Structure formats: structure tokens, C-alpha cells
């Protein structure tokens, strides 16, 4: 049976389901209640669960993220919504200095079962303070788990295992995906540990996550037309990285192209390529390559924003360069 829904609806159903299953769960953030969520994810949940559990917070990212940590310590299972990733910078202190560090620095006494959701990414002409992809930064921090649902199935299924996780989990929802339609599939059985192969292929491994998965899959279709058969890996979990799935694929295709909407320097793409080289250097037929965002604050006008981001065309070009001289 096919049950098509949007990514937004899948997130909402996941929230509804979690609230019903566990009375300790509550959602807190700016405009999650009366407004219905800035991306309308929580629309209708206030009516279903009331203002205690669908808790509108003032514009205090530092305050309500920190409060989420405290509530998690005291036995609740908070889900904190941060409107967009750029605003999460106002809450970096509690996320890094408290949530990520607490268990280790307390000698294992305090786990922080906190889930934080936020929109990330560009493509909606929202300019330089609403459009960045900073999940790679967060993936730098030991103590956090970082998820990037790229499909309706993951949007529906990742929240519950994230809530079951005893440690802080950050979920990055690419803002371009909210209207994506799809079948939630076998959402109840998904894990939050492994990368997934979204398209099998033999010539080149395209490694990506989140908002650029669709672009990578479109590029793979185009490349198939010119005889390059791509395997597309959706990382899904940005920390800890699933090296095994990555390396198994790269050792098969012998070529790797990373597509990452983050900036290039010091990025998640840099980390992935390093791991491929460290663990698979002698299996490679070509140096790994990457397509990242231009190293500029994301600009407002559409043509410049598009030029700043990884696109299907730039992925196709990079893939063709990587496969030059390939003999099959």
C-alpha cells in the first residue's frame, strides 16, 4: 500500500506519534504552538496536546535550548525546535559546553537525552543569515549525534530512535525538502546508525546527504545517459560517520565524489575524503573530488544563490572529470 505524504507531514506525524507514545516527550521552540511552526511542521499539534507539551518559547535560543538540557537531565524527553540553523549559533554554548560535554566531564553520571530539530540549507532566497549548512560544524563535536533525513521515510522514522537515544541528537531538516513528496515506507524499522545506498552503481560513488541527495540522484540519472553508472550514498548520520558503507562502495567503484552543501574548507566533505584516503587509498583509481558551496555568505538574488550551491550540472561535470580515462 502506498501512502504518499510530504516530508513536512512525515515530520509532523513523527512528532504526533512520539507525543502519544511517551508522556515525557514535549516540543519546545519559537512559534511551535499558536503559529504552527515556522515551517508549519507542528501545525495542529497544539490543539491535540495543549500548551504545556507544545510549548511556545520566547526568542531565547540560548535559554530554551539550555532549558531543554535541564529538562532532559530531570527525566523528560524534550524535542527542541530551532527555527533555522543560523539561529542555532545563539545556542552553541549549551549545545557544546553542556549537552555534548556533560556525560564525559561528569565521569559518566549524567546523560542528556535531548533531541534538537532545525531547518538548514539554502535555495529559498533567504540570503546570508537564513541559508547556511552548518551541520558539518556540529558533526565536529564529540558527544553529539547528527542526523540529516533526506527522504520522507527518514523524516517519518528518525525521530523515535533519536528519542530513544540516551545522548543529545541533532536533526537537520533541509528547508528545501519540506514539500518533498514520498512514501514513508518501512519507517518504523529504520535505524539511525547507517548510511544507505539510494542508487546502486559500479563506476563512481556519489556521497551526499540531506538537501543535495535529490540533486545527486538527478545527476546520476543524467550520467547514466553518458555511460557512467553512479552509486549514490545517503549518509543520513553525519556523526558518527558510517565508514564501512562508504568504504565498501568506494572499494567497488574506485572513485568517490562528495557533494556537500557546506563550505569546502574544514568541512564534512574534507573529513569524508580524508577517511576514504586513509582507509582506501590503494583501492582508488582517481583522486576523490567534491562539489561544495562557494565560500561566500549565501546571497539573495536567485542567480547568485544558484551559482553558490552544488547543482546537478556541477555534479555531472565533476563526475565526468573524475571518470575521464576510465576503462570499463
Amino acid at each position: 500500500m502506498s501512502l504518499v505524504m510530504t516530508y513536512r507531514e512525515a515530520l509532523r506525524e513523527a512528532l504526533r506519534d512520539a507525543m502519544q507514545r511517551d508522556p515525557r516527550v514535549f516540543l519546545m521552540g519559537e512559534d511551535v504552538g499558536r503559529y504552527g511552526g515556522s515551517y508549519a511542521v507542528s501545525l495542529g499539534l497544539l490543539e491535540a496536546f495543549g500548551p504545556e507539551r507544545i510549548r511556545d518559547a520566547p526568542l531565547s535560543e540560548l535559554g530554551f535550548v539550555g532549558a531543554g538540557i535541564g529538562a532532559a537531565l530531570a527525566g523528560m524527553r524534550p524535542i527542541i525546535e530551532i527555527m533555522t540553523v543560523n539561529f542555532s549559533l545563539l545556542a552553541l554554548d549549551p549545545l557544546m559546553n553542556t549537552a555534548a560535554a556533560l556525560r564525559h566531564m561528569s565521569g559518566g553520571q549524567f546523560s542528556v537525552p535531548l533531541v534538537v530539530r532545525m531547518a538548514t540549507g539554502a535555495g529559498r532566497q533567504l540570503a546570508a543569515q537564513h541559508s547556511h549548512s552548518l551541520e558539518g560544524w556540529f558533526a565536529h563535536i564529540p558527544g553529539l549525534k547528527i542526523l540529516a533525513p533526506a527522504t520522507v521515510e527518514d523524516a517519518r522514522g528518525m525521530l523515535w530512535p533519536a528519542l530513544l537515544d540516551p545522548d543529545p541528537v541533532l536533526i537537520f531538516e533541509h528547508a528545501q525538502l519540506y514539500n518533498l513528496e514520498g512514501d514513508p515506507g518501512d519507517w518504523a524499522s529504520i535505524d539511525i546508525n547507517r548510511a544507505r545506498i539510494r542508487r546502486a552503481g559500479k563506476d563512481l560513488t556519489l556521497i551526499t546527504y540531506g538537501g543535495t541527495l535529490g540533486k545527486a540522484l538527478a545527476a546520476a540519472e543524467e550520467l547514466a545517459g553518458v555511460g557512467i553508472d553512479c552509486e549514490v550514498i545517503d549518509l543520513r548520520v553525519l556523526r558518527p560517520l558510517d565508514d564501512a558503507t562508504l568504504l565498501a562502495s568506494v572499494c567497488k567503484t574506485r572513485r568517490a565524489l562528495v557533494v556537500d552543501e557546506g563550505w569546502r574548507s574544514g568541512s564534512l566533505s574534507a573529513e569524508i575524503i580524508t577517511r576514504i584516503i586513509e582507509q582506501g587509498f590503494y583501492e582508488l583509481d582517481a583522486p576523490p573530488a567534491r562539489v561544495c558551496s562557494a565560500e561566500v555568505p549565501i546571497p539573495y538574488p536567485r542567480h547568485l544563490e544558484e551559482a553558490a550551491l552544488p547543482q546537478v550540472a556541477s555534479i555531472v561535470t565533476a563526475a565526468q572529470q573524475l571518470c575521464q580515462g576510465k576503462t570499463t
Partner: protein
Amino acid sequence: MTPSSLPRDSALDLLRDMVRIRRLEERAGELYGASKIRGFLHLYIGEEAVAVGVLHALAADDAVVATYREHAHALLKGVPMKAIMAEMYGRQEGCSRGRGGSMHLFDARTRFFGGNAIVAGGLPLTVGLALAEHMQGGSRLCACFFGEGAMAEGAFHESINLAALWRLPVLFCCENNLYAMGTALERSQSQTDLCAKASAYKVEARAVDGMNVIAVHEATRHAVEHIRAGHGPFFLEFRTYRFRAHSMFDPQLYRDKEEVEQWKARGPIHTYSSQLKAEGLLDEPGFLAILAQVDAEVEEAIAYAENGSLEPIEDLSRDVYTPRSAP
């Protein structure tokens, strides 16, 4: 209120606990000089009346969140002195397995949530603990300690707004020792009336002589009653003074020796012990007996720390994440 309006045992307990803090910290300072304790060490000497007066007014299961100057709060919350000393020694017998050191004392058993070395960082955490208490229908309160310097941080303002907005059971305890490291209050905050800041958020506020343990205790009891009655948070400003340097690296260029001496004349231990003697609740042999008893506890704690063990390097990565049983 005077000491004699307390039961005698309680009156003497307040003194004994101030002496425990004082002697623990005097010895910690010496051990720092002897390189037994490293990193940062922030001593509370001079401010003992605040932690003692407040903690004696809280229930055992109330939550406490403190700063990096928190040996006193941990001790009075019930963390054994030997576990505190072992922590400062970096030994795995310490209350945070030696991983935190002086600034990161933690103890789940007594609901002592640190040991926070980000100024004002413990405040949002406290609000969350109180939010959970509120949502779970409990009656425990959550006390946080912070310096006056923290009131320049956004975290203070966000936290007190949340606590007031949601009428959460938070006791805000400002330890106003006049200097944020070396920056005097009037050089760093446009509004130096700290209670006015709390009042701006519609939070009940009171300034208290933080050198007077009885005044601290009485004010806290009143605040605790207010919070437990469901009237929301309470803010207490304790006017106190740090007799020692900010940390062990501070040459104290920002204040006059004369000022320090003036405050020392109001030292909480000798003023309170004099008061107890004047009221016939204590005599000199009794005072010396307390000192001897406390010194024995401190030396025992030091011996425990000296004999403690170092965490094996193989455990370095343990507890970055919570161990999970295999599915």
C-alpha cells in the same frame, strides 16, 4: 533573627559548615602551591556564609547548580569532602572520576548539577530542571548560584524571563562579590541595583547581607516558602566578598589591600562565632573542638586523594556517549 532563635545544634552546624569550607579551601590553596592540584582553582574564602545559609534552607532532594567556584556548594549538598579533594587531585575516586577537576564537581546522587565553568551557563540548565519538575507535578525546587558578573550575560536575562514567564520553582542566588574577575560591578553594568534587574522580570527580589549567615539563612527560608507555595521564582542578592584572588593566577591589581582588609573585618566565621559566644552558645574550647574535628576531616580527605588512583588511559573515550547494550 539571632543564632539563639535557632536550635543550638543548628546554630553550631552553620558555624561548623563554614569552617569546613574554609579549612578545605585553605588546604586546597596550599596543595595548589605544592602542585598537587592543577588547572584553575577558585577559592570561596570569605563567601562561606552564602552557601551555608542557603544550603541549610534547602531540602535534600532539591537540585543545586553552581559555578566554577563551587567546592562549598558541592560539600554542603552532601558530596563527601574526600570525593571533592580526590576530584581536585584528578583521581578517579573523585566525584567526577577526576575528569572535571575543581571547576566540574558533579554528583547525581545528591542532585548536584555542577560545577559549570561558563559564566551563567548553569542558569538555563536550572530553568530546565525546574521546568521538568513543574511538568512532572513535583515540589522540589532548583537553586542556581552565580556571580554578579553573570548578570551581564544574556543567559541570565533569558533564564529569569523563562522562569518568571512559566512560574517555575527556581531560586536565583546571586553571589555579588563586587568583581567579575577584575572588573568591578559599576564598570561593567549600567544598572548596579541587581534586584531591580530581577524585578524588571516581575520576580520577587531581596538584597541580603551575605557576610551574615543568619541573614542569608532567614532570607532563603522565606524565598523557599514563596517558591514552594507555587508563587514562582525568587531572586536573592547576597552582598559578599572574596578574600582571596579570583584564581591562583590573579595578582589583584584591581582592588586595594585596604578594601580587602575592611571586608575581612566582617569575615563571616569570626563574626558569627563571636556572636555565638556572646549568646552563650559556644565557648573557646568548643570552637577549638570544631576546628580540630574539621581539620581531621580535611586531612582524611587529603589522604584519600593522595592514595587515589588515576583513570586508565584506555578509558579516555569512555562516556563520550552512553554505553548501550547490543541489540
